[in-house]
């Protein structure tokens, strides 16, 4: 990703120095490989072989102990034409968009509110950040209880205070996906907030001063100084959050497991069911490969857009 852009200017002077000086003595040729060996073995076993296996399983009918048979694109056409996969893909996209924008907007607002140096703000920032370090499994169990669908449920009591509800939340097909998105936003917004805060710290303070002297309102300051300064941060957060949304599994698995009535089935829960419950590893792998391609396309698109804008 951004490493690729940062690398050339960094590497260039290094190589330049290399040609000027005699080659630095760095032991035998195999020394670096010795240091790299553990990493290479583990990456091979747990990243590259599984990746290759996912691709090869996706074009085969996987039959444990019986041997696999080549089926070409049959798995892909089967999964692409199945209604459950299409609706899972739709749900995944809706969930990813909802969580991405929800967390980014809320995170940006939070970052503006808690920007500053005072001790009080540090405390608020740490408190607001806690959801990010709480294991997702705990978050899901906690929200499951808070979403209790009767009027005495914690969140329904709050809705009752403003004269609404009771809502079925995760038990009602109409609100289930939105409820999962809310949980995701609750956990994602503080993360985005932290990244925005790092971005805000990099904005030249003098620009604010100048804007104020020129009689700019707070709204104009944000529009013309803060937002342009944060553009790269927005791009990074967008990719991270969207990929996070695409791969969401744990919270959906624990909150609804795809229910009620398939209203929250996402690609990852579907793959899990295909692979583990129905033992259809080939079809499941085809789904995984498609999800990977979607993730890759999204990342590359955002990178290209970014490069064109900065160029």
């Amino acid at each position, binding site marked *: 990703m951004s490493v690729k852009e940062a690398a050339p200017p960094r590497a260039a002077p290094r190589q330049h120095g290399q040609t000027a000086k005699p080659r630095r003595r760095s032991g035998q040729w195999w020394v670096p490989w010795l240091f790299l060996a553990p*990493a290479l073995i583990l990456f091979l076993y747990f990243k590259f072989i*599984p*990746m290759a296996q996912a691709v090869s399983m996706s074009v085969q009918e996987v039959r444990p102990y019986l041997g696999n048979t080549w089926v070409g694109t049959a798995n892909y056409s089967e999964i692409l034409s199945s209604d459950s996969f299409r609706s899972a893909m739709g749900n995944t996209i809706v969930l990813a968009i909802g969580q991405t924008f929800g967390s980014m907007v809320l995170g940006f607002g*939070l970052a503006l509110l808690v920007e500053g140096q005072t001790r009080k703000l540090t405390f608020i920032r740490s408190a607001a950040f806690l959801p990010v370090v709480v294991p997702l*499994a705990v978050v899901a169990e906690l929200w499951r209880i*808070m979403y209790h669908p009767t009027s005495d449920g914690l969140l329904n009591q709050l809705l009752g205070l403003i004269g609404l509800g009771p809502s079925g939340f995760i038990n009602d097909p109409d609100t289930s996906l939105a409820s999962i998105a809310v949980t995701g936003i609750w956990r994602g917004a503080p*993360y985005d907030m932290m*990244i925005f805060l790092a971005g805000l710290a990099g904005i030249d303070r003098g620009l604010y001063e100048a804007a104020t002297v020129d009689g700019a309102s707070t709204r104009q300051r*944000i529009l013309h100084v803060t937002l342009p300064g944060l553009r790269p941060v927005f791009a990074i957060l967008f990719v991270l959050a969207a990929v996070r949304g695409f791969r969401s599994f744990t919270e959906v698995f624990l909150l609804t497991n795809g229910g009620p009535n398939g209203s929250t089935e996402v690609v990852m829960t579907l*793959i899990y069911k295909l692979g583990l419950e129905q033992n259809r590893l080939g079809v499941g792998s085809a789904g995984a490969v498609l999800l990977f391609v979607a993730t890759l396309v999204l990342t590359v698109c955002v990178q290209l857009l970014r490069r064109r804008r900065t160029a």
Partner: protein
Amino acid sequence: MSAATETALGLTERTGPVAKAIKFVVYAGLFVVFAGPLLALLVSSFNHVSDPTQLSIIPKSPTLDNFRVAFDHGVLRYLANSFFVVGFGLLLQVAVSVLAGYALARKKFRFMTLVMVAILATMMLPEEILALPLTLVLADLPLVHLNLMGTLAGMIVPLGAWAFSILVMTEFMKDVPPELEEAARIDGAGEFRIFAQIILPLCKPALGVIGVFGFTMIWDQYLLPLLVATNSNAYTLPLALRTLRIDPVVTPGVVMAASLLALLPSVVVFLLFQRSFARGLTAGALKG
């Protein structure tokens, strides 16, 4: 207000009573929304919560019964499993990353760029997508033909391949001045000695970053342990929460007590090492 403390909203400038009141309400609201649910979890785990509607932020009759019942259901064993996985997983990940980082940052060799790109490319590969084939690999490790399914080792070894940690170590080790290394070499220090006694001690901040980040990441793992743990003996605590919840005799208070135990380690690590954590967060976002 001086320019150095200027913020986007300019909130720090305003100190009138109205502005103060608004600020207080906003900050209190933030606290309630983000810390409130966790406070409810904390309080409920010490209360007799027998149905999901009793979750509350006001302590009623404090008791340790929830924890006692949770222990009866094997929560201590699951907690021990979690610690075992995070301990050895982190050890493996850090060891692999510092070794690889040393080679990538301090050495020049053929195919270096290829290795670097291959490792970094895995950062774009969400681990969830590899979950199914990974279980097949773990069931029959290529060449050595070991079956790690159903074992804690099966949850631990894949954690060694973590590109983020390698990236952080590589970037950090690049900044160690070459003079130090050359001086040691002239003094006759061997390759491993230079690594262990010169480079590594200078990388403590980076070790902090990958340690804290790795800890919370491993503690949060769910899908891989779920697929690997074929029986409940190998469950980690996050996995056990669901089993507890489904158990008809277990009350929500007990689930909250177990949840508290499941969140405490990573929250404590975060609170103790906030600085390293924030550094990892921005490095992860800006580099990843």
